[in-house]
């Protein structure tokens, strides 16, 4: 009798189950929707998705961060958990509508990826790779051959996702043009950029960091690189410069959510330097990278730098030894439009009803 009473009493109340589930990785949670109807409604609740995302983001390192790349061998996206190990990856199904086309990644934010489909008239796609849900965004640039760049960001002040697209610039017929699309209001608006000197953005994909989108650009036909920044709350473009010039660069998002730049100078010693922006000023990190001319840094995990070297993912430890690892078969272009660092989440877009062909639980 006592055992029966105990067994009945021993069911954990849902509020405590939630407190445990909030710490699990997204992959586990997707599966645990099958445990019971209660768990299904708990995990599918948008309130839980927000709680889960915020909890992971509040930790010193976000355990749900992954490297996602578009595979060139099979029409799928692959994901690497860099924190766990850089030796294995897993597949994520691309949305059915774009699976067999040439794609590039224009940005990522809070678990969503902005995809560009290289087909005339195709829309942009906002895609959550783990839940599979996606939404089309009509593309403002009529001619698909016009090189353009983009970014995806989240405006905390109004709980809205903004898609930013720009095209033109130095060397093209057009002055640079910028527009942003608000997911909530569902239309495009022009961004004022006349106050900026003529510039040309050199990367496809923006980096979203602390409410601002960043792109690398060239200014005034100079060799000097600048960073173009778009503040999402104020809808305002600006330029950020940094101390060094020349060389080859890449934007990074580093620990504590700071914006970083990896700078490879082409001088004799071929060192890669990493600079971090803290409180509006640049400081150089004390990192030594060997084989500098072939490693493109991606991010730091557990104090070690992870980067790509000739289509392979490598880790560089303090001792400067590079540990070879996973082969990434995607075209490793310098502007990284085939791979992106993103954070897995269960979040859904505001007012999302689900696009055509969306499978509910994939």
């Amino acid at each position, binding site marked *: 009798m006592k055992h029966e009473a*105990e067994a009945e009493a021993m069911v954990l109340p849902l509020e405590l189950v939630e407190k445990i589930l909030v710490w*699990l990785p997204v992959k586990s949670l997707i*599966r645990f929707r099958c*445990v*019971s109807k209660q768990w299904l409604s708990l995990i599918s609740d948008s309130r839980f998705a927000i709680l889960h995302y915020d909890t992971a983001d509040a930790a010193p390192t976000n355990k749900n961060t992954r490297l996602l790349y578009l595979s060139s061998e099979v029409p799928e996206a692959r994901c690497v958990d860099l924190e766990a190990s850089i030796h294995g990856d897993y597949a994520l199904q691309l949305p059915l509508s774009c699976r067999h086309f040439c794609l590039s990644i224009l940005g990522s934010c809070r678990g969503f990826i902005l995809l560009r489909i290289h087909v005339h008239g195709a829309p942009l796609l906002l895609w959550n790779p783990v839940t599979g849900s996606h939404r089309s965004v009509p593309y403002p640039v009529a001619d698909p051959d016009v090189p353009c760049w983009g970014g995806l960001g989240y405006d905390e002040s109004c709980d809205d996702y903004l898609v930013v697209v720009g095209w033109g610039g130095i060397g093209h017929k057009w002055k640079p043009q910028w527009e942003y699309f608000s997911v909530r209001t569902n239309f495009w608006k022009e961004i004022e950029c006349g106050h900026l000197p003529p510039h040309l953005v050199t990367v496809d994909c923006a980096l979203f960091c602390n409410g601002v989108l960043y792109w690398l650009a060239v200014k005034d036909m100079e060799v000097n690189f600048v960073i173009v920044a778009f503040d999402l709350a104020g809808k305002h473009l600006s330029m950020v410069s940094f101390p060094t010039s020349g060389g080859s660069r890449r934007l990074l998002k580093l620990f504590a959510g700071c914006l970083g730049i990896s700078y490879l100078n082409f001088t004799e010693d071929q060192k890669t330097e990493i600079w971090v922006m803290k409180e509006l000023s640049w400081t150089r990190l004390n990192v030594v990278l060997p084989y500098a001319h072939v490693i493109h840094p991606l991010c730091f995990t557990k104090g070690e730098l992870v980067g790509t070297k000739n289509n392979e993912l490598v880790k560089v430890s303090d001792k400067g030894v590079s540990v070879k690892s996973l082969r990434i078969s995607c075209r490793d272009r310098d502007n990284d439009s085939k791979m992106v660092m993103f954070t897995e989440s269960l979040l859904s877009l505001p007012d999302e009803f689900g696009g055509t062909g969306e499978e509910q639980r994939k």
Partner: protein
Amino acid sequence: MDKWPSSNRYSLKAALMINYNPVIPSLCLPFLDLLIEIMSIKEKWLSAWCIKPVGGALVRQEPEYILLALMGSPLKKIMLCSSEKEIFNVEEQVMVQHSVIINNMIEDGSYNHEESKIPLDCVDSKTLKKVIDYCTHHTHHQNDNQEDLEAWDAQFLNVDSNGLYDLLMAANYLEIRNLLDLIYGTIKNMIKGKKIDEIRRIFNIKDHGFTSEEEEQNRKEYPHFY
């Protein structure tokens, strides 16, 4: 003090338990003066923890309480009462540091040190003892290095799932943040890679609520996780 004859210890106990005021049996007074001289006990310490006689009877105290009071600063104790009506004396400092509920009770003055016991009707004695154990260890060893604390925690949570469930409910009721986080972390690691059927067993979910079609579809979608 162990070497003192028991009669002396008894007198000492009696003497120390009487509030030091002018109205003291003359028998005790010289003894008390001597004690103060020998042990250099400050007068305020004595009055801080000396219990006034309650209703003519002196409240019982454990011997180690007296010893501690003589050796160091006064340690106020509080009484916790389990669901099985067993009373546990715990240092106030320890419980206040860890349990938000108890801290609030003491702060808002609803707890009367001389009379109250805090009734914890949903925590049984075995679990309450464990919880007190956790809080006491973490207060007394808070300056230990991280690895030692983690090892102790791991050993502490080496219980069966019933025990873990009881600890979780108790920690939740008493709002002991660090114990809760510890248990959440343990359970999270326990379930991370497990199959659906195992999760149902661990969480004692007898009725999953899906229709047979839904359940079949689930099994088709995630065949490796059943």
